[in-house]
């Protein structure tokens, strides 16, 4: 929560371009109000400030993103025959809304995969993949050990 | 007392008349008659000062901006009329108290009849052309309401409307004529008009003015071919018929001719038009009168005939004819008023006005019968009645007509013969004929069944009450007394009136006995032949049927398909024209409306653009364009085309979004970030709105035919081309904004903002923005109400 608030305050400062303490405080206050408004819809959340995890996470993510782009580019330019699209159900360990959403977004942004849906009981995520061969299990493992682990690291 | 009070008092009394009626009950008529009686005395007082050049003018400003004053002009002519109006008015108000006793309309009748009387006084006393017109229209209006007094009957309503439209239409022509006259002379005052007759007669607009005025006069005074409304107006209660449609209102046209003859008269056009119309009316109406079976309709046609005779006389425009006309006015008012009132009394007492069923009433109604007899004698022109003197004068005037004296006299004699017979029919037959056995004559068409007659109810007749015999008796008595002493009142009055008509002092000396002369011979002949027609009317009719069937047929045709048929045809034509026009124009097809709007814009705008500006290609500006800008432009057009052609609603919405984004991008490229920002946001929200709404609406269907689509496309392209041309023409010259430099210079120092766009919005032109958010607020309220408030469903 605090992190988010600080992020919002920073965003405010970035937007206004005025790097003054007062402005930061104002941004913080504004962000606090906005967050308060936002949380009225559901359950409140707690957060840990794990800056290094976050940074590592971002680096990992950026790398995955570049990889993803190159891969899709390849598929765009390559003959169509090589595609093996599929929708695969992957069981979830992450539980909270934020965790699931973050995971889903990451999956979407990264190579060959796109989150399509989450089951009603929140235990399964359905992922569209461009290149799944018959290696469903390997795919599931990649997801769970790559992204899900890191998401849990960052958010818990 | 001032004349203005004399005129306006009637209106004031009219306002409280219903109340007087409620309070005064049976005596209300007598009470209310005090005013007209007083007015009669008031006007009679002027008789003492009567000299041929007698004129009293009073004037108050009314609407000076239009040259309209509340001025009154009292001379011999208006005095004659004023006396008739207030005098007969007195009798009629009293009479109605008996005639309409117990009827729910009586209160209204008092109000209307007093209002009419005041209007009529105003008309004949008006000293300003517009004031005259105001009262003129008021008489038409009150006549309308009085004819329709018994408004639950459809025929009464139709007759009232007919009278209103005919006289109202003529009134409008009169107005135009009066205004034109005023423009020629520079003043609308009667005195000015009368003194500028020569100028008007020599003006290029003389003939139009004359025609317009005559149209007014002829419609009001029921001249052929506008005569038909008057017999139909007999739907009105009898006192109304007696007062308005015989003695006074219908004479307004005659008054106007008399009044304006010094101005407009004595020209060839006047002679031919006025004399011609009068002659035709006189003869035709006399013929038609004889064919009627309803007492009131007979009287009505004979009135029309008299009006024709009066018009004829005024058309002759000689001193003698003026005298004759003025005397005739007086005589006719007396005997015809009496006969109408008698007819009412008969109807009231006997329960019918059908002369075929009436007879032998003299014993039951002696006073009424006496009054009727005297009046009929006067009408037939027998001595010692005033009518006799009048007939002599008439013949004399006709014989001395400046043109076609023979024809005019012959027509006059023929008409009078017929009227003698009519006099017998209305004044003698109901009272002294032996039986009331049905008349052999069939009904003459065009006159329909007798109105107001309850066929079933045949009451036992007895004498009418005092209120109802006083009027006829007084009027008939006056006809007798004046006939016996013509040099007293009538001479003075007719002299003064004739002077006014001639515009110069004219002395009239009336005498009952002129000695035996050719004119006397004519009179005797008239009476004898008239009596013969009366007695032998049935054999005559059969003979006419055998030997001159065309005459009967002709009358039939005139009755059925004559002017009245024309009126019906015009009314039906108007209705069908209106319906057709409305069906064509107000068709209900929105796209038809849009096409017309567009064609109007393109037609007028395109014509103006082409004719007033040279369409030149704006050189120099076309080259300054970059590739990506063209691409964006093409994108917009392509998306537009998609929106046009796609059948999927959401595709269309997406295409619209692309159009909006494209436009926003253009805003971005040309230095309008605020605009682009707003456009992006609005566009997205609009897409959202469309999606929210459209997903519940049906798929796009192609309803229109291919031809329609091509037509619409052509119209739309033309409109688009106009806008393109407009842009090209406007941008071909450079723009020097007068406002922007000021905004730029003052944004920071005065308005304290660096975003000039925003400063304009919230400060320089903040009022626009206030209006704009008001619009938004209303839209919000509106959408909410539309979605949440559903009266239709609630009602179901």
């Amino acid at each position, binding site marked *: 929560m605090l992190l988010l608030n600080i992020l919002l305050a920073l965003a405010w400062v970035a937007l206004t*371009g005025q790097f003054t303490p007062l402005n930061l405080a104002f941004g913080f206050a504004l962000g606090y109000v906005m967050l308060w408004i936002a949380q009225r819809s559901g359950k409140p959340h707690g957060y840990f400030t794990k800056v290094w995890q976050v940074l590592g996470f971002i680096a990992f993510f950026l790398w995955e993103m570049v990889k993803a782009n190159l891969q899709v580019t390849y598929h765009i330019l390559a003959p169509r025959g090589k595609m093996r699209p599929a929708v695969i159900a992957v069981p979830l360990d992450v539980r909270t809304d934020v965790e699931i959403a973050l995971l889903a977004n990451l*999956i979407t942004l990264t190579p060959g995969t796109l989150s399509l849906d989450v089951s009603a009981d929140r235990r399964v995520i359905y992922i569209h993949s461009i290149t799944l061969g018959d290696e469903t299990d390997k795919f599931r493992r990649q997801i769970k050990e790559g992204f899900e682990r890191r998401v849990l690291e960052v958010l818990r | 007392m001032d004349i203005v009070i004399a005129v306006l008092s009637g209106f004031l009394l009219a306002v409280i008349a219903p109340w007087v009626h409620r309070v005064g009950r049976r005596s209300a008529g007598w009470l209310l008659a005090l005013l007209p009686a007083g007015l009669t005395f008031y006007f009679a007082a002027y008789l003492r000062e009567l000299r041929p050049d007698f004129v009293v003018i009073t004037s108050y400003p009314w609407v000076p901006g239009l040259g309209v004053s509340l001025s009154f002009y009292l001379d011999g002519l208006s005095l004659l009329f004023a006396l008739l109006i207030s005098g007969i008015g007195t009798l009629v108000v009293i009479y109605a108290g008996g005639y309409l006793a117990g009827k729910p309309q009586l209160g209204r009748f008092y109000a209307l009849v007093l209002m009419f009387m005041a209007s009529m006084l105003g008309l004949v006393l008006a000293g300003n052309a517009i004031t005259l017109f105001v009262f003129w229209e008021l008489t038409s209006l009150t006549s309308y309401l009085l004819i329709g007094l018994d408004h639950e009957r459809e025929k009464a309503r139709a007759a009232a409307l007919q009278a209103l439209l005919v006289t109202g239409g003529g009134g409008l022509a009169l107005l135009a004529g009066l205004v034109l006259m005023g423009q020629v002379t520079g003043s609308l005052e009667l005195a000015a008009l009368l003194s500028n007759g020569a100028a008007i007669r020599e003006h290029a607009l003389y003939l139009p003015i004359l025609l317009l005025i005559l149209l007014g006069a002829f419609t009001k005074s029921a001249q052929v071919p506008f005569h038909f409304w008057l017999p139909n107006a007999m739907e009105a209660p009898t006192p109304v018929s007696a007062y308005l449609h015989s003695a006074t209102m219908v004479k307004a046209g005659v008054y106007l001719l008399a009044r304006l003859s010094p101005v407009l008269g004595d020209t060839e056009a006047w002679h031919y038009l006025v004399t011609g119309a009068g002659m035709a009316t006189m003869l035709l109406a006399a013929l038609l009168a004889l064919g009627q079976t309803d007492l009131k309709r007979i009287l009505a046609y004979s009135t029309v005939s008299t009006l024709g005779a009066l018009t004829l006389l005024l058309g002759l425009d000689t001193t003698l004819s003026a005298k004759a006309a003025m005397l005739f006015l007086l005589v006719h008012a007396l005997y015809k008023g009496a006969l109408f009132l008698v007819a009412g009394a008969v109807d009231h007492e006997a329960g019918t006005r059908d002369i075929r069923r009436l007879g032998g009433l003299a014993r039951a109604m002696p006073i009424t019968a006496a009054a009727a007899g005297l009046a009929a004698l006067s009408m037939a022109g027998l001595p010692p009645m005033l009518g006799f003197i009048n007939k002599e004068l008439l013949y004399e005037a006709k014989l001395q007509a400046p043109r076609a004296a023979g024809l005019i006299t012959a027509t006059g004699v023929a008409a009078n013969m017929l009227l003698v017979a009519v006099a017998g029919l209305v004044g003698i037959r109901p009272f002294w004929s032996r039986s009331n056995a049905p008349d052999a004559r069939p009904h003459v068409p065009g006159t329909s069944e007798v109105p107001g007659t309850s066929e079933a109810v045949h009451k036992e007749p007895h004498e009418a009450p005092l209120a109802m015999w006083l009027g006829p008796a007084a009027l008939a008595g006056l006809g007798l007394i004046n006939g016996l002493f013509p040099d007293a009142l009538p001479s003075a009055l007719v002299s003064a009136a004739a002077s006014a008509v001639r515009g110069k002092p004219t002395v009239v000396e009336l005498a009952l006995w002129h000695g035996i002369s050719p004119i006397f011979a004519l009179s005797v002949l008239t009476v004898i032949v008239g009596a013969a027609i009366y007695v032998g009317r049935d054999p005559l009719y059969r003979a006419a049927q055998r030997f001159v069937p065309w005459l009967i047929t002709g009358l039939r045709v005139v009755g059925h398909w004559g002017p009245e048929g024309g009126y019906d045809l015009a009314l039906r034509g108007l209705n069908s024209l209106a319906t057709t026009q409305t069906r064509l124009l107000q068709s209900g097809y929105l796209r038809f409306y849009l096409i017309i709007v567009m064609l109007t814009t393109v037609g007028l705008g395109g014509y103006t653009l082409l004719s007033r500006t040279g369409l030149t290609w704006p050189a120099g500006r076309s080259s300054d364009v970059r590739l990506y800008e063209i691409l964006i432009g093409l994108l917009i057009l392509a998306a537009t085309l998609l929106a046009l052609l796609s059948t999927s609603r959401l595709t269309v919405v997406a295409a619209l979004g692309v159009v909006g984004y494209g436009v926003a991008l253009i805003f971005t490229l040309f230095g309008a970030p605020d605009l682009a920002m707003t456009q992006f946001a609005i566009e997205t929200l609009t897409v959202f709105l469309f999606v929210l709404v459209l997903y519940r609406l049906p798929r796009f269907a192609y309803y229109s035919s291919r031809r329609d689509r091509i037509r619409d496309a052509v119209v739309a392209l033309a409109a688009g081309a106009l806008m393109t041309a407009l842009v090209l023409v406007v941008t071909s010259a450079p723009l020097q904004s007068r406002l922007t430099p000021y905004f730029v210079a003052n944004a920071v120092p005065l308005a304290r903002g660096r975003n000039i766009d925003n400063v304009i919005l919230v400060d320089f032109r903040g009022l626009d923005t206030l209006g704009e958010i008001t619009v938004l607020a209303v839209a919000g309220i509106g959408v909410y109400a539309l979605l949440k408030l559903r009266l239709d469903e609630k009602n179901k």
Partner: protein
Amino acid sequence: MQTLLQLIAILAVILGTVFSVLGVLGFIRLPDVYTRLHATGKVSIFGVVLLLLATVMLTPLGFGKGLVLIALLVIGGPATSHAIGSAAHRIGIPMKRAIRDDLGALEQNQAGE
């Protein structure tokens, strides 16, 4: 320093443009809406992010805003793809050449019950 930034920016503009166009090409070429989402959701966004990066480097005042924009795209893009993808799947847009569809199977099961 300035030159280096310029160079990186030029590179970013070129790459960004190329990726954007590539993404669109993929959007045109790929067989069904799901695979097309990969092209738009990743490649095009990546291209635009690169363009934004160039902006961040070249316009000092735009620094913060550029970063905010990048964040927005990176957060919003996947959510959008997800929203459309799942909607498409739910209204039954078929997958071309699919070898497996767990979600479709699930829905069929539920429908069958």
